[in-house]
């Protein structure tokens, strides 16, 4: 059992996402610690890629902020190395960055370095199961998990193949489309979870969860965990641009122009708690319904 499976062992897991380096490295490290304090069971750290084709506007903007702040894979790993949090860390990025890293051809150097800095696994949204062989191998070599995404449209053989290859947990995409906070939780979630019930790997549901109430619903529909990205990134974005709204009109770069990072961190921690509590409440209900 990896540290990721373990994170799902004591009840529903809360899995927050933030892009590292958004809006600047120092602040984002503070935010990650806030999420950790707020009850994160696993933290997904985005390593920004210039063409984030699977992301909605919110995370896309986070990626742009981080990149224009100078984030690179090397800086990402260096920063993670210094990071001292309880929750296990997952790196979420795109395959080209994984593939290009280091001098050797293929994903091995990237995984090696990730392992070195204490990363436990990867989510690579543009890497389909069919092309994942080399990365899977490297992960196995260094004892890391490779988490795959299952969409509402994934059925039959494809589903089998993915479920065979995923480890740590499976990322259950709650709806079609891209990442982004929504007001409602899709009906598709229940159906997706039903389809997955015969595999006993943890099922973490993401895409569109933004409140404790939604977290509760998703977990009571059978999820083992909730993944929350855009709702948290929104807080970072608002904090980063708060200064510029009354200020010069330029988009804020770093916290000089925004709310103090400590204030933003508090907001993140508050929402994290709400989400975690929602998830736990959902589990209680799911438990009671089952009995």
């Amino acid at each position, binding site marked *: 059992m990896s540290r990721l499976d373990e994170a799902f062992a004591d009840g529903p897991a809360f899995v927050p996402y933030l892009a590292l380096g958004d809006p600047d490295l120092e602040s984002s490290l503070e935010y990650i610690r806030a999420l950790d304090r707020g009850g994160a069971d696993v933290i997904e750290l985005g390593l920004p890629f210039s063409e984030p084709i699977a992301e909605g506007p919110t995370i896309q903007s986070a990626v742009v902020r981080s990149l224009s702040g100078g984030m690179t894979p090397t800086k990402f790993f260096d920063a993670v190395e210094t990071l001292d949090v309880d929750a296990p860390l997952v790196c979420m990025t795109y*395959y080209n960055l994984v593939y290009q890293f280091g001098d050797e051809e293929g994903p091995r150097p990237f995984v090696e370095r990730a392992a070195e800095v204490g990363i436990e696994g990867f989510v690579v949204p543009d890497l389909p199961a069919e092309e994942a062989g080399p990365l899977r191998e490297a992960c196995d070599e260094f004892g890391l998990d490779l988490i795959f995404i*299952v969409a509402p449209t*994934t059925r039959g053989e494809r589903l089998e193949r993915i479920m065979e290859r995923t480890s740590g947990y499976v990322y259950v995409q709650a709806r079609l489309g891209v990442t982004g906070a929504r007001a409602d939780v899709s009906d598709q979630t229940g159906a997706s979870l039903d389809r997955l019930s015969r595999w006993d790997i943890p099922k973490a549901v993401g895409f569109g969860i933004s409140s404790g109430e939604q977290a509760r619903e998703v977990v009571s529909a059978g999820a083992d965990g909730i993944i929350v990205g855009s709702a948290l990134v929104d807080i970072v974005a608002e904090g980063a641009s708060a200064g510029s709204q009354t200020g010069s009109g330029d988009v804020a770069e770093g916290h000089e122009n925004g709310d103090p990072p400590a204030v933003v961190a508090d907001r993140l921690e508050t929402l994290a708690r709400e989400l975690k509590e929602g998830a736990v409440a959902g589990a209680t209900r799911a438990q009671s319904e089952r009995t």
Partner: protein
Amino acid sequence: MSDAPSKFGEYGGQYVPEALMPAIEELDDAYQRYVVENEDGFVDEFRERLRDFGGRPTPLQRADRLSERYGTDVLLKREDLLHGGAHKLNNALGQVLLAKYMGKERIVAETGAGQHGTATAMAAAHLDMPCEIYMGERDINRQRPNVFRMRLNGAEVNPVSTGRGTLKEAISETMRDWATTVETTHYVIGSVVGPHPFPTMVREFQSVISEEARRQFDEQVGGLPDSVVACAGGGSNTMGAFAEFVSDDSVDLYAVEAGGSSLGVDEETGVAPNSASLSTGTEGVLHGARTKLLQDRDGQIVESHSVSSGLDYAGVGPELAYLVDEGRVTPVTVDDDAALEGFHRLSQTEGIIPALETAHAVAWLEDATPEQLGDSVVVCVSGRGDKDLESVVEETENREVPNAPDMDVFSGGMR
């Protein structure tokens, strides 16, 4: 039409979010049935519409004065005469028609300079399909006439404001739309790029160019040409012009890339002042496929640059990358200045105002050795230059273009 392996050597593949996988599998299946096996007479209808709506066959024209200049028979494959003014319609019409056969209800597409967008909007209007085009805000401002043409054809044009607001961002945004609406929507990609089956399918739709050119050459000149030259952005006119000659070893194939203002990549700023991904790029994954691309050491895609917006793309079709590695296709480059000269040369000597993309192919004849061209060369005139008049006035004024006409009629610019 031929069967479709999903890879070209190591290139190609399907590097897309899982949500899209069922859609591209469905597409792959539809491609196989309708396009390869002509189910329900798809290919017949496609050919007929290409003829009646598109204006095919396009001529293969001997360029008398260029032939004299280069001491070789120069034959122009006139895709500029296709409806819409570029080869783009071959693909757009094929894909929109396929979407119709698949029972899709809606078309989305990305566009950079607007050529693929206008071709798609035309095809969608023609086939009565609702259509939305994603286009970077910056491109919208640079290419108003094309935006207007799309709107006239009844398409929505959705401005994309993320990033630099150009083609790369528009592609990403269209993929996002598709990921959300995949059950009812078909994404008409504009070149031989993207995940399988797009590179194969787009090449098949475009291969009518070389199919005709091969037959026309044989009828008009006899035998096979010694070389074929086409510009390469994503590479769709390129693969279209090469496809039917690939197995003819005696025919040399030259892909002319945009050399921009200089070759190389500025790692510091993440900018390549060119779009020469075949000539200078490295292997990587972009927009769903493994291919050659312009990237920095970390794998971040850099900004490409070219005076011709249709060539201004950091990637290139995976099949073309493969053919280059195999030595079957020779990549060459032409810089901005030389492209402008080529533009003016064709305009003045043949009475054909080419697209700036095409001007690269024409300009390369100037650099080619007699051995490279051989006794006869087919040049793909991928499009006409009406869309580029404004840029050419500007760019010609900004540089010393030795063969440019005196522009004194235009006291105050183009309007």
